[in-house]
């Protein structure tokens, strides 16, 4: 049975009419047409499809779109305006946290959620936040570096803002 739902993706409202078995990633990629969210396993094991639902990272390949009716979703396209990178996106490039790039959107969303609630995470907190995201290229060292580095530059900006 189809349902009319409203997804607020990156601040924009999308009215969709979907079967209840359509997953959130299908809605995002096939119905809304945002293709930055990746599908690596389609069974909730790799984290490539991570998006933020009301600010929390979730696996969009094992989440039904209808369950997200009326909720706010952030995809990789909503992390920055795409021209000026966010601190974390910039740090991923600068620190070598990107290789093939297929896990990168999910990594960045998990990392973004972490930095939002914990501006100064320790290494084990970074690892905990990113433990659901598989990366086969980097060995993770530089991904950890990137998140730590972004947390430093984020706090730097915040400090400046506070002054």
């Amino acid at each position: 049975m189809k349902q009319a739902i409203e997804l607020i993706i990156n601040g924009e409202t999308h009215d969709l009419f979907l079967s209840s078995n359509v997953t959130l990633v299908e809605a995002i990629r096939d119905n809304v047409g945002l293709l930055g969210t990746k599908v690596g396993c389609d069974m909730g094991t790799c984290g490539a499809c991570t998006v933020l639902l009301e600010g929390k990272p979730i696996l969009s390949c094992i989440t039904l779109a209808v369950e997200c009716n009326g909720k706010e979703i952030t995809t990789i396209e909503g992390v920055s305006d795409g021209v000026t990178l966010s601190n974390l996106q910039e740090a991923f490039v600068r620190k070598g946290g990107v290789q093939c790039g297929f896990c990168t959107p999910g990594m960045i969303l998990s990392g973004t959620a972490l930095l939002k609630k914990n501006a100064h995470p320790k290494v084990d907190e970074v690892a905990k936040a990113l433990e659901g995201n598989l990366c086969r290229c980097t060995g993770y060292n530089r991904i950890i570096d990137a998140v730590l580095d972004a947390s430093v530059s984020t706090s730097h900006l915040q400090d400046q803002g506070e002054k």
Partner: protein
Amino acid sequence: MGELKLVGKSLLRKDGPDKTTGKAKYTADRKLPGMLVGGILRSPHPHAKILNINTEKAEKLPGVKAIISGSDTRGIKHGFVETPRYPPDQNILADDVVRHVGEEIVAVAATHYKVLNDAINLIEVTYEVLPAVFDVAEAMHPDCNVQIHPNHPKVKDNFCNIAGKTETQWGDIEEGFKQADLICVDRFESHLRTHGYLEPQTAIADYRGDGTLHMWISSMGPFVKRKKLASTLGLPEGSIQIHKAYVGGAFGGKIDLFSHEYCAAALSIKTGRPIKFVATREEIFAAYRHGQPLISEIKTGVKKDGTIVAQQLRMINNAGAYKGSGVVVIFLAWGFSMIPYRVKNFKYEGYSIFTNNPPRAPLRGHGAPQVRFALESHMDIIAEKLKMDPIALRLKNARIPGEELPNKDNVHNCGLQECIQKAVSKTDFSNRRHRIPNTEKISAHRPIKHGIGLGVSAYFGGSLIYPNGSSAIVKMNDDGSVDLLTGAIELGQGSETVLCQIVGEELQLEIEDIRIISSDTATTPQDIGAWISGMTYVTGNAVREAAGNVREKILQVAAEQLNERVENLKLENKSVLVAADPARRISYRDVYNASIAKNRGDTIIGNGHWRTMRDEPFHPSLATTKGRWSENYAFSVQVAEVAVDTETGEIKLLKATTVHDCGFPINPQLVKGQIDGQVSLALGHAFMEDVMMKNGYTLNPTWLDYRMPLIHNVADSKEVDVITESYQVGRSFRTKEVGEGLVSAILAAIANAIYDATGLRMYTTPFSPEKVLKGLKLLNENKGLR
């Protein structure tokens, strides 16, 4: 030549912004109007005769647009190797017999996945199940009652199911063993692992009314795919355009032609509509190709002083149901065993054996980790028996610069001796080895034991395999910026960044001034692809020549305009100036316009080509190893520091130190990224990853059950460059392999470190907790007996 500006610098990846913002387009991100979805019915049996295929019910299902089966593809063969000795042996869709679980039988095109899956379920196949064999020893046994394919006609050994054999020798092996003071015999075994690329196997085909076939494929080189598609589809190569798509990792697993790629093309031709195939993760685990399990039997004769005087090797590979890369890995295993050390008398036999398992593919290192794990463990065993320092043993036999290898290749500026010395000094190796038994005495109750171990490896770079070389085009724009056209494919290694650095260096441009158009078979020149570890060297030199060609043209035009001799000019900041009188200058923009005006419209287009071993007609013989293999050998030494929990059997790789000779690193940060990734892959190989198969079925076809390293399984990875080459503008350069050779020595180093920590010698991978506990128990019992 002055200081280098771009090359040798850790410039940021050109594809970084696109990949971090979700703009980078991979194959599945391509949406075409009216696109169908495709899927494949696969064999549920490891070995069976197909008696009948009935697709009637499926065809009647609304939304099913086309179905093809073995009768449509009969007679079309393909294979990883296609040579007279090893002709292609795989069917696109099974003909009369299926030989492994997951073998492709019927392909369906449908409007939606729901219809597609219903259609596949409605296809009725009647099988006569045949006996099957999975274990390599059983399969090759002369009395084996399962004949998967006839034995290779040229191999006369009294074994069954021989897919291929490599044999070679030099010196006098009998005489060599006679000279030996010690003869050491060992046997090692490596297990089945898989690539674990994040992006699934994906292909899109769009056959258009004008007779051209357009494809997007997650691959490791569009030109190899195009060739194989053209030959199987019976189309001219020029009618197939494989478009650029970023690739979400491959690690060897996406080279060959896969049935789904052919089927996508055939079904698009049949329906006149675009079609997309995406393999499910379970399909990839259960039916696609994994790496190469290898048995290594080694016999080595040494003198008291450590000189290796004879070595005899027998390698046996479980190839699966078709030759795949199995007949290549037995050739490569010879190569990986002969590079690092001098062995005067040598004999090698490699067998590739058919079993009813899925066929195999290269997996990063393609045999090197298996071979080096065996040989470097063996070296430590020999050293102990000789009561010799394992470092001294290695230094005694390690190649030195300028040495000629038995296949007439030369190691040129080989950095191996220096790598060994630096690895030892950087890790304080000699002092820290054996330190552990002392701590053990102090705190016998503590279950954690630390150990340190070392391994040596070497890897070839580039080789003569289709398409044997690369070309490149550099063309100038009106503002002096340039476009680089290259067939090189970006799959994470950073090719686009590295190639732009080379262009920038040759033309004194900023990296932002270079636009790269890559990996499109119609608009970019042919390229060797990202699969024989030669892209930076082969494509890099082609790109350097193309940019050099542009530089020559720029200088020529500028010389005429400035009325000055070319040798007095230099390039700087998108201008040409007189070195002695910098005020006399001409901008690239003016050079561009002058060239159009005076050189019959030449917009300053340069081209370049590169082929390794230009005097060599062909790749070396897979059967005899004769012929040149590579002109670039990279050497490496890796040191592992481990902690073994003797109560749980769990082992941690605490620190990996990689000392390597990659020639000249064009981009050190990208090199480091390659090393970290390879250490992580080896960590998975050593402790975590294991494709568990029973009777041809994969028991753990998900990432929940096939454990790859997570962010919690990070090893501290340090690296030391031993730079043996330099880069000079206008001259060919030598970079050596760095993308896959460094999964090997570290594996051996881990095994040797486990021995150092516990006295337990690992003869098989993975070094799993149960194996470690069992081994330690046995060790303690034996101690008790003594």
